[in-house]
């Protein structure tokens, strides 16, 4: 690490505006949600200020635990698939001639130009029974009956991988681009097999990128809400949908707030554990 430039004043004034924004727009609402999570719901909804822990104890219901479990494995699967798909892509981009790299990265972020909701709707048209995917597979003779993908877990998984792949590719690219080529060449010179070059040289050196990419993909997929709602057909929920359902359908804000806090605590614990176990060394 290079030493920071000499501070002009002992107090970091520049930190104040972002810290203020964070406290007002993030800290205060978070405290409100925390307070509501200990309240009770009224008959038609709304919040009644009768202190209770019931909202937290009722999360232990197997009904809700199953949703947390489902969200967890969908998020883990999404992260794993993004990693497997994103790594070669990032590697190719990082190894491409310099003049191509800008264009290739540009292609990775082009989807962000369109609203996520619109892109998710587009997937509905691709995946449905008479959609593009089935038409293509049918006319190629690969299948004889249209696949039933839309409104299944597969559709949700496809949507999540599609949505979050760029978040995996960008940090991986950043790590791979800095990777010292001479180390890879040295491995070849020392008769390492291709697998060994990858596992002993490339992968360890790109570890900060892998960790950053996994965290960036895992967290939003765990709380995903639009994708399971539209591509899953509102048939099954992820925890994000369960929270939305509490707020906007059954009007049980206190329970929705408790769910939000449990989710946040879970994510925080998982990420801290992951960073400690997996990569604190390589991040420092």
């Amino acid at each position: 690490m290079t030493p920071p430039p000499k501070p002009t004043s002992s107090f970091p004034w520049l930190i104040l505006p972002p810290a203020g924004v964070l406290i007002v727009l993030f800290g205060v609402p978070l405290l409100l949600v925390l307070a509501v999570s200990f309240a009770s719901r009224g008959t038609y909804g709304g919040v009644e200020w009768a202190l209770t822990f019931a909202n937290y104890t009722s999360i232990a219901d197997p009904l809700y635990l199953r949703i947390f479990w489902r969200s967890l494995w969908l998020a883990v699967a999404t992260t794993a698939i993004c990693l497997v798909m994103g790594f070669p892509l990032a590697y190719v981009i990082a190894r491409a001639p310099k003049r191509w790299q800008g264009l290739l990265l540009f292609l990775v972020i082009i989807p962000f130009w369109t609203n996520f909701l619109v892109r998710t709707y587009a997937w509905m048209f691709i995946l449905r029974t008479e959609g593009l995917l089935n038409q293509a597979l049918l006319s190629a003779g690969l299948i004889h009956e249209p696949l039933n993908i839309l409104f299944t877990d597969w559709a949700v998984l496809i949507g999540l991988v599609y949505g979050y792949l760029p978040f995996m590719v960008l940090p991986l690219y950043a790590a791979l681009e800095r990777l010292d080529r001479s180390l890879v060449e040295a491995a070849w010179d020392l008769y390492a097999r291709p697998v060994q070059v990858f596992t002993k040289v490339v992968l360890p050196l790109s570890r900060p990128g892998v960790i950053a990419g996994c965290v960036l993909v895992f967290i939003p997929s765990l709380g995903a809400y639009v994708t399971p709602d539209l591509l899953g057909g509102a048939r099954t929920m992820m925890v994000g949908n369960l929270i939305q359902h509490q707020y906007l359908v059954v009007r049980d804000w206190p329970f929705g707030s408790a769910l939000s806090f449990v989710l946040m605590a879970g994510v925080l614990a998982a990420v801290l554990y992951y960073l400690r176990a997996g990569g604190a060394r390589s991040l420092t």
Partner: protein
Amino acid sequence: MFAVLAACSPGGSEQGKAKPVTLHLFTWSDYTEETVVRQFEERFGIKVVTDTFGSNEELLAKLQGGAAGYDVIVPSDYMVSILIKQKLLAELDQAKIPNLAHVYKHLKGLYYDPKNTYSVPYLWGTTGIGYNADLVSPPPDSWQVLWDKRYKGKISLLNDEREVFGMALRAAGESLNAAEPAKLASAKARLMAQKALVKTYTSENYDQLLVSGEVALAHGWSGTIMRAAAERPSIKYVVPKEGGTIWQDNLCVLKTSTHRDEAMMFINFLLEPQVAALITTKVKYASASEEARLLVPKEIAQNPSIYPPETVLSRLEWIKDVGEAIKAYDRAWTELKVK
């Protein structure tokens, strides 16, 4: 926002010149005819911003969440009674809504607002089954078809707790307002068993699912299914013999509205026979305005799926507020959706 900008523009503060007002309309998705809104904006110099919701419960949740800033909302019957109890609605000045005179007598003063103090009838319809006659035979006449294993994965249900439980309750010969725990539990059990056959729960795009052939049977609202039928003639609508829901959507003004007069002008405008006819022609739901029925095309005015005959009306039931039992409904709906 618009009002603020307009107020800053030169001339906006001139004496005697009315400041441009922006009305915020909160309504069902796919429910407003854009050209009608344009007409209103041009005639009265009032801008209308539309926002949409997908169920009465979502409307209530957003209003409770302090979604202030809306002026005109479009709740259904039972939600009007809840909103009145919650003291969220403003009293209307009927003198400012002369077109109320065109509303059918039997649609005025319904159980939820006996004197139309807070609500003006707007559009009404029924809940039944839309089906694709190319894929479904014989033509269904009972809710039981939605439990028919032959149509596994070809069924869509409304994403609406009262409608879905109402359907299951009526299918078992019960009232769709049943609040007894045992009846609710048995309805839930039947819905759980049905879930394996259901492709999706949606209140918003099932007309497209029917048209594209994605589903063969859709639990849905009359007008939306008639719009699908207009695109694909093999799509038909039936109110099952066990009976279904009759509902009426209403125009209300929120107590928090700062533009109540303009809001009532807008409500009155929507009930103008010409305007109401245009809306019904487009959205294919029956207008509460008696005059409007004389102005819509014959194929709509005489369409039994849009204006149901007495034989159908007699087996329909209104959804009513179930009071405390709403918590049991909410819980059962969550369990069904989570499964």
